[in-house]
């Protein structure tokens, strides 16, 4: 995105000797944001946990989860973290081609994950678990839906990076942008690591 990324005027050139942390503002902003996201997902996960055994007359989580399928899509998302970090590593070396390649791969893996989620949702709906079926279903779809939206936003950002790379404006000196997008991406992955274990693998109530 490099050249097209907005840059503000320096707050003041002479600010450079200030007493700050010496860390880039942007990166700090992203980390601060991720700290805040912990509370967001924490709230959604807790809601789910409180409601997972309240499936009313609908299907129970233990009846409906397809662990092998979700394992595969979790693995896909996990590996997208690897490709993400490889993309950054390539750019750090000035290897634009590989950077592009890995960015695209990451976005594709992310899309694969989303595809899997869409498939999972449709299967669930077909099996009688609609959004309004029970507290469990509402909580489940809301939690995984929020995660899915985060992944989708990540894909949009990755594609924007990819396109600006094609236009030749994502160069080695812009690796911080890639790094920041990467932080977001890994965070979303981490959240899924949590969700996958706590929501899918820990045995759920059955009806």
């Amino acid at each position, binding site marked *: 995105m490099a050249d097209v990324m907005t840059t503000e005027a320096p707050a003041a050139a002479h600010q450079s000797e200030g007493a700050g942390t010496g860390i880039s503002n942007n990166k700090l902003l992203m980390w601060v944001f991720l700290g805040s996201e912990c509370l967001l997902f924490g709230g959604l996960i*807790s809601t789910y*946990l409180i409601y997972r055994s309240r499936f009313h007359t609908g299907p129970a989580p233990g009846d409906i989860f397809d662990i092998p399928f979700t394992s595969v899509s979790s693995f896909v998302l996990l590996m997208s973290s690897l490709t993400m970090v490889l993309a950054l590593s390539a750019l750090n070396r000035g290897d634009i081609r590989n950077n592009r390649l890995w960015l695209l791969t990451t976005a594709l893996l992310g899309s694969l994950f989303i595809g899997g989620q869409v498939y999972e949702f449709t299967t669930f709906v077909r099996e009688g678990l609609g959004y309004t079926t029970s507290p469990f279903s509402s909580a489940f779809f809301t939690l995984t839906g929020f995660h899915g939206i985060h992944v989708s936003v990540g894909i949009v950002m990755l594609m924007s990076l990819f396109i600006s790379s094609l236009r030749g404006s994502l160069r080695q000196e*812009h690796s911080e942008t890639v790094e920041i997008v990467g932080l977001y991406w*890994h965070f979303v992955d981490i959240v899924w690591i949590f969700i996958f274990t706590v929501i899918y693998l820990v045995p759920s109530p059955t009806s």
Partner: protein
Amino acid sequence: MSTTDIAQSGDTSHDGGHGDEGHEHPSDAKYIQIAAILGVLTALEVSTYFVNIGPALIPTLMVMMGVKFFLVAAWFMHLRFDSSLFTKFFVGGLVLATGVYMIALTAFEFWTKG
């Protein structure tokens, strides 16, 4: 997009500006190694679905999850190499979220009644 932050703006050489002054980035091989460990851990996790390991199940799962979590944060998110401030923010948010929501779950008798 520029990468140099305000505090370093005197320094116009763009070397990636990660604030990880002086630290070498892990090699790609290292990343792949980490990913392999993550993959194996995931496989182990999933295997608990097929193999009954009794009451050890939940602790085992939690440990494996924790390790995966840690590996991604430490290596892929560079927390190992980056400013400890980031770790503080992240861990701060994490600990606060865990603490607060655990108390809330306790109030809902989640641990005792599931």
